[in-house]
């Protein structure tokens, strides 16, 4: 929906021959020549995945900002000791529930610990829970999905039925069972989230494999005697990659949100360490008296998840051929 004026201004640069006379014709105008095609006329070479990845951000400012936000989060959380103004565990009971000030930018919790520092350290756990279970479950899901899709038959049936069961099982409850059995902690969250998430990945990868299996190049590869597992590695995996990247950007924020639910059930991060989810839950009763310490971790989650989602959208728009402009 741009203005009309802008449209009409477009003109094509050709050099039309005058309709009459011959004076304009150059002397050697009729000499036969052989014109080579200009370089631009050639088809652009296939972009590597990395180039594709970068091209996402060239034209999409929102995606670029999201990426910067995510990187910033990661840098700050990984380098927490450098950025945190205080020791996140240092208590000062006299500062309990202190309001934001120049000393404590976001105020203090009830034990007088600096909320900003706790958020910076807590982000480590939130980010780790976002990243690691996602990577593990997606790797597992990809392997099983490819196996199911490619081997087919009974193997396919068994894997997919197990996936059905996993997807049907209430994930929070599963986390509770795991946590009560082996005790709460990072490993628990890790196992519970991995267990639930692999099934979704496996399903998507499997259907991708099924459709790819019919494609010419895979058939061709099979017909010239290339081994099955080589086909999988060489052809199917790179082709599933766009889908996987999109799923990755969806699962990471999903897990960060789930972590806040787990904290609500008391099986998230373990004190005295904290995570954003736990901070939101722990500070809820101060909403009236010291709203900053309740709002800040919630907003931190919100911004990070929004950034991941924007990034995911941008990646999907770029990588999903169905959405690309012709």
């Amino acid at each position, binding site marked *: 929906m*741009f203005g009309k004026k*802008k*449209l*009409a201004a*477009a003109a*094509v*640069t*050709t*050099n*039309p*021959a005058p*309709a009459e*006379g*011959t004076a*304009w*014709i*150059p002397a*050697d*105008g*009729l*000499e*036969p*020549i*052989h*014109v*080579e*095609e*200009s370089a*631009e*006329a050639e*088809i652009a070479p296939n972009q590597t995945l990395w180039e594709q990845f970068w091209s996402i951000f060239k*034209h999409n400012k929102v995606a670029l900002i999201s990426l910067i936000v995510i990187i910033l989060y990661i840098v700050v959380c990984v380098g927490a000791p450098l950025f945190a103004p205080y020791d996140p565990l240092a208590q000062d009971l006299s500062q309990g529930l202190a309001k934001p000030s120049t000393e404590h930018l976001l105020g203090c919790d009830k034990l007088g610990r600096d909320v900003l520092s706790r958020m910076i350290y807590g982000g480590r756990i939130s980010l780790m829970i976002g990243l690691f279970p996602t990577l593990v479950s997606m790797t597992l899901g990809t392997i099983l999905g490819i196996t199911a899709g490619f081997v087919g038959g009974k193997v396919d049936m068994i894997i997919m039925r197990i996936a059905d069961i996993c997807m049907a099982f209430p994930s929070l409850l599963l986390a509770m069972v795991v946590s009560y059995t082996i005790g709460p902690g990072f490993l628990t969250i890790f196992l519970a989230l991995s267990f639930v998430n692999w099934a979704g990945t496996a399903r998507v990868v499997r259907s991708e494999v099924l459709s790819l299996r019919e494609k010419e190049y895979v058939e061709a590869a099979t017909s010239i005697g290339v081994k099955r597992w080589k086909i999988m590695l060489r052809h199917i995996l790179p082709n599933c990659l766009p889908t996987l990247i999109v799923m990755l950007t969806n699962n990471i924020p999903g897990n960060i949100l789930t972590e806040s639910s787990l904290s609500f059930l008391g099986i998230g991060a373990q004190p005295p360490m904290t995570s954003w989810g736990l901070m939101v839950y722990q500070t809820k009763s101060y909403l009236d008296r010291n709203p900053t310490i309740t709002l800040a971790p919630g907003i931190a989650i919100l911004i990070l998840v929004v950034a991941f989602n924007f990034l995911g959208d941008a990646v999907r728009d770029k990588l999903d051929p169905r959405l690309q*402009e012709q």
Partner: protein
Amino acid sequence: MDDTILKIRGLKTQFFTSKGVVPAVDGVDITVRAGEAVGLVGESGCGKSMTAMSVMQLLQHPGRVVDGEILLKGENLLKKTPRQMCDIRGNEISMIFQEPMTSLNPVYTIGKQVMEAVRQHQNVSKEEAKKIAIDIFKRIGIPEPEKRFYSYPHQLSGGLRQRVMIGMAMVCNPALMICDEPTTALDVTIEAQILYLIKEMQKEKGTAVIMITHNLGVVAESCDYVYVMYAGKIMEEASVFEIFEHPTHPYTYGLLNSIPKTTEVKDHLFTIRGLVPNLLSLPKGCRFCTRCDKAMKICTEYEPDLYDIGDGHKVRCFLANKEVMESGK
């Protein structure tokens, strides 16, 4: 008496992409008379379909007609409101597409889809519309039309689906039917049947036809008059007979020569070297010069006009311009 149905004058259609303005159609003049079948030939990407879509006013963002006029029975379609265009589309001008597999909506029965066209333009009841639809099914040779009325597109073969498309296009007796590569996706045996059907419908209803194709064989079989398009411009136009007898433009010549003939034995098939140029960076002179075997220096400097060489035969090539050709002697 003016029996001109469609007159396109200086049509310019451009696409405003992020990489620049793509002149998909760059000043095209086409005239179609009542009952006439006009061929529009060229390689893919040369602007044939865009010309058709411009006529239908179905260009999608970021495409837009920027100049020219499209006169249907003397009325400029470019001045019509979207609402008025809706009354024209499917009623005055209809169109059939290349892909019969995907051109029908998979979730509706074919009967419903044909009825929809009828009811859009004719004030008839459902029952009447159904009668009309079944009637047209009979005429386009769909076996068991009453039963097929309730079939879904995926239950029909490609040929039958294209017949349904033709039926849908003809059901309102349009003055002009644009066929965009109607047979490209079909088997050769089916192709002949479909072309025959189009011809028959054309004769029966007196409908003018624009046949868009890259296949000169189709043109030979079904058209009266031909426009050869290249990179958004008409390169040559003439009657079918003339084109086949006296192809003048090197491009036309090339197209003709790339059809395998049973009468000649060749080691390899003739091809036009190179590819359709990128419309964003057209050569300075003649847009075909990069691929032309007969290119001259002048061709890289100036773009030739469409020169009339008699009998309505027009060619956009300096070779056809006596003045120019003689200047060098």
